[in-house]
């Protein structure tokens, strides 16, 4: 790296390594069902416990999912990829080696968005160590126990090229990846539960330099927030080192989300020699044409493409389109509502932009953690409600009251409006209320007449209060102006 210049800006260079637990029925190399919080060591067999004499056999569904991922990320699929043994001793690794892929991975050279994918490979997860004692880590623990339920869970590792330039970018891109994987149904992609894990390789270099600086690897940040905080902290640390005249050393780091501290796990000198060699118990993985086309056929429309389509065809705002595309179920709900609105026959219907707003701005906050698809509100009902607003059969604010009820108890919006008397106030009723409001707001009337248009709000507000929102704001304004003009 060239001489640091005090004021010269540094540019972070970030690459990500993501581990994805596949949502297969069984483990990577044996027939044990995957575990979801069962009693420890109840999802095990001689194979995943590494008993003498056992042999691995490859899970076809895991291969299928991995091929889907490779294709979705636009990768080249290797005609014959190899499994290797990665050797090291640790109590969570029953065989003393992890079966992984090394120099010939299943897929390579792809891209998602503007980040290039270096490689995608299959491997098995380690078991889970639980350390008794204050530190929660193995050193200094009073004792440790192993739960082998997780051991052997299929993992796909995705490695990006160092194409990211900020923590925010990294976090944003990881959201796209997560949405993509979720859309494919290949993983639960839950960072807190560890079905999606992310390590970051971080380096800095003077802005504009082409050569890469020495990288540090930041391990296992288990949320988007921690990922962003961790990378930011590491960038700051490296800048401080370099500006202080030091050099960054290649090491593996642990980010403590509680304290924000970064501590070294091991340096390059302490790095393991994993003694990789081809796994003699398995034959090369050679996907057939049939396997490839089955994986290709199984790919749904992916979030990036969906966002583009929603923006282009339905004219949604880019942020709204991304929100709906990245949360696949939300997007599905929205598109069902659009379909219901279009198939709703005569009468005014809500357009896609209005429906998107009803879904994202109104419905989502009312549901809390519940996905719209699991809520009592059906896409058809929401489309009907939005359509009634467009047709001015119900006011915007009354419709929101109706949605409050629907979000808890469901129901048909039209029936609810009738039942609760929330329909638009009839013309004669509204006329009387407007007359009353003008009478009671002489000061505002005065201001309007002397040219202060904004004062009309006070009268509109009064009408709305009186009608409990059952009036259209624009219509009320029109009526007030009409009356004041006539009177004046």
């Amino acid at each position, binding site marked *: 790296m060239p001489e640091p210049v005090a004021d010269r800006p540094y540019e972070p260079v970030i690459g990500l390594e993501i581990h994805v637990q596949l949502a297969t029925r069984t483990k990577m190399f044996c027939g044990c069902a995957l575990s979801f919080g069962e009693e420890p060591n109840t999802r095990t067999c*001689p194979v995943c*416990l*590494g*008993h*003498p*004499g*056992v*042999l*691995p*056999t*490859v899970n076809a569904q895991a291969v299928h999912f991995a091929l889907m991922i490779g294709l979705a990320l636009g990768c080249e699929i290797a005609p014959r990829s190899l499994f290797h*043994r990665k*050797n090291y*001793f640790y*109590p969570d690794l*029953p*065989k*003393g*080696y992890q079966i992984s892929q090394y120099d010939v991975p299943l897929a390579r050279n792809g891209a998602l968005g503007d980040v290039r994918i270096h490689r995608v490979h299959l491997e098995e997860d380690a078991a889970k160590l639980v350390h008794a004692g204050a530190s929660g880590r*193995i050193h200094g623990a009073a004792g*440790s126990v*192993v739960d082998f339920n997780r051991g052997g869970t299929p993992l796909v590792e995705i490695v990006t090229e160092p194409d990211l330039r900020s923590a925010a970018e990294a976090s944003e891109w990881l959201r796209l990846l997560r949405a993509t994987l979720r859309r494919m149904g290949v993983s639960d992609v839950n960072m807190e539960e560890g079905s999606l894990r992310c390590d970051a390789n971080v380096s800095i270099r003077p802005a504009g330099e082409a050569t890469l600086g020495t990288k540090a690897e930041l391990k296992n940040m288990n949320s988007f927030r921690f990922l962003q905080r961790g990378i930011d902290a590491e960038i700051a640390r490296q800048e401080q080192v370099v500006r202080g005249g030091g050099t960054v050393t290649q090491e593996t780091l642990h980010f403590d989300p509680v304290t924000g501290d970064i501590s070294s796990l091991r340096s390059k000198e302490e790095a393991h*020699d994993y*003694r*990789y*060699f081809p796994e*003699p*118990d*398995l*034959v090369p993985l050679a996907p057939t044409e049939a396997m490839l086309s089955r994986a290709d056929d199984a790919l749904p429309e992916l979030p990036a493409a969906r966002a583009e389509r929603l923006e282009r065809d339905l004219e949604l705002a880019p942020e709204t389109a991304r929100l709906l595309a990245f949360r696949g179920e939300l997007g599905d709900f929205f598109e069902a509502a659009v379909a219901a609105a279009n198939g709703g026959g005569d009468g005014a219907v809500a357009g896609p932009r209005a429906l998107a707003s009803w879904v994202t701005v109104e419905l989502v906050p009312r549901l809390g953690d519940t996905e719209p698809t699991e809520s009592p509100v059906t896409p058809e009902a929401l489309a009907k409600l939005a359509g009634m607003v467009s047709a001015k059969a119900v006011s915007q604010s009354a419709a929101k009251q109706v949605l409050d009820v629907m979000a808890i108890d469901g129901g048909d919006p039209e029936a609810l409006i009738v039942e609760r008397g929330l329909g638009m106030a009839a013309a004669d009723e509204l006329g009387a209320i407007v007359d009353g409001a003008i009478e009671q707001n002489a000061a505002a009337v005065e201001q309007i007449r002397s040219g202060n248009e904004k004062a009309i709000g006070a009268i509109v507000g009064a009408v709305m209060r009186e009608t409990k929102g059952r009036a259209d704001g624009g219509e009320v304004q029109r009526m007030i102006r009409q009356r004041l003009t006539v009177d004046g």
Partner: protein
Amino acid sequence: MAARASDEALSLTAAAAVERIAAGELSGAELFDLYRERAGNEDLGAFLWLSEAAADVPADAPLGGVPLAVKDVFCVEGVPSTAGSRILHGYRPPYTATAVERLAAAGAPMLGKTNMDEFAMGSSNENSAYGPVANPWDRERVPGGSSGGSAAAVAAGLAPWAIGTDTGGSVRQPASLCGIVGLKPTYGAVSRYGMIAFASSLDQCGPLTRDVTDAALLFRHMVGCDPCDSTSLDYPAEVPLPTAERLDGVRFGAPPELTGEGIEPGVLEVFNRVRTTIEELGGEVEDIALPHTAHGLAAYYVLAPAEASANLSRYDGVRYGMRAGDGDLLSLYEETRAEGFGDEVKRRIMLGTYALSSGYYEAYYGRAQRVRTKIAEDFRAAFERVDLVLTPTSPSVAFRLGERTSDPLSMYLSDYCAVPMSLAGIPAISIPGGLSDGLPVGIQLAGPAFSEPRILDAAHALERAVGFTGEPWRA
């Protein structure tokens, strides 16, 4: 059963016993009890564990209930399975090896577990943590290894037949030293599931029997693809029992690399006699070059230890078997493995770990793999000219106990002629070719992948002509 009747039953080959059982003249249970009693009183050190009673054998089982000695390298549910190692002392597997299961289902119930070199590493059975095995021909001598217990048991009439494993000669060499038949099948012909692994790309399970017909019969019921072993393959057809009595038109190739320098004169004498016998039976023997086989042993002692170094990592004291240390993780690993493994196993773990180390991988592992490919190509070229390759099985007859224990290289040389076939993944049989100074000499016949029927047929014809009648236990 009267003494003479029992003697007679014990003298039957397994195939003959199967026939007698099928004819209702003998029962599998009777035979089991006879062998169980003999094995219970043996003092060769051949058995490490004996079944109390015969497992139930279906009445129509093709192997009739003729009991089987099983090398301790096979996992059998609930039965001590140590692979000859202290580190697996007391270990009782929760499952049974496919080969053992298939043979039991075919009617060969397990008689007991036989002694072996620790983790199948050795050529004399002296590396067993549970003591050596004496050769029934001369109790001062080794039975060979690593399947020394199985070979000695069959040679001494303690079992009608046995299974062992062969990684670089571990079935053929002890068969040779004990004067019996040993077959190493084509790699992939028999499932490795449940065989405690030494070197996964080389390990194969094979029969050790009194004659060639028994080997064919046992082999017939071992083969086949196993969903638990991705490297196993369907056998092309049912293995026929051999019938050949002549060798007319069969072409044999004798490679100078494996039939000259380094072979004991007495062994060469028997070998040359067999060569003549082949010609008398109508076969042709020509010299055929296998130029790279001279490097077989060197390549083998890189590849096999490399795989072993990983295969044996699981013995860490965490989940099963022996455990030592003061409770600290590093001490658990170090003490367990220091106390649990014997010297030869440690030597090979070190060799293999070194060969796979970063910076050395290409020079050792990579190069050894290329040698392996060359050897396979040598054989492929040879089998365009000849049907079978003919060599002595081992350069020497059974050596004295303790004679080679302090010199690993001389021990390794015992498998000099057997290792090339293992590296090439091809089948090879060892049959007794005669005696040298009163000790058996084995002759090896090797053929292309899945040519076991051809090998067995030729071996059958040769066996009849040689007329070897070594039954040291009946002398």
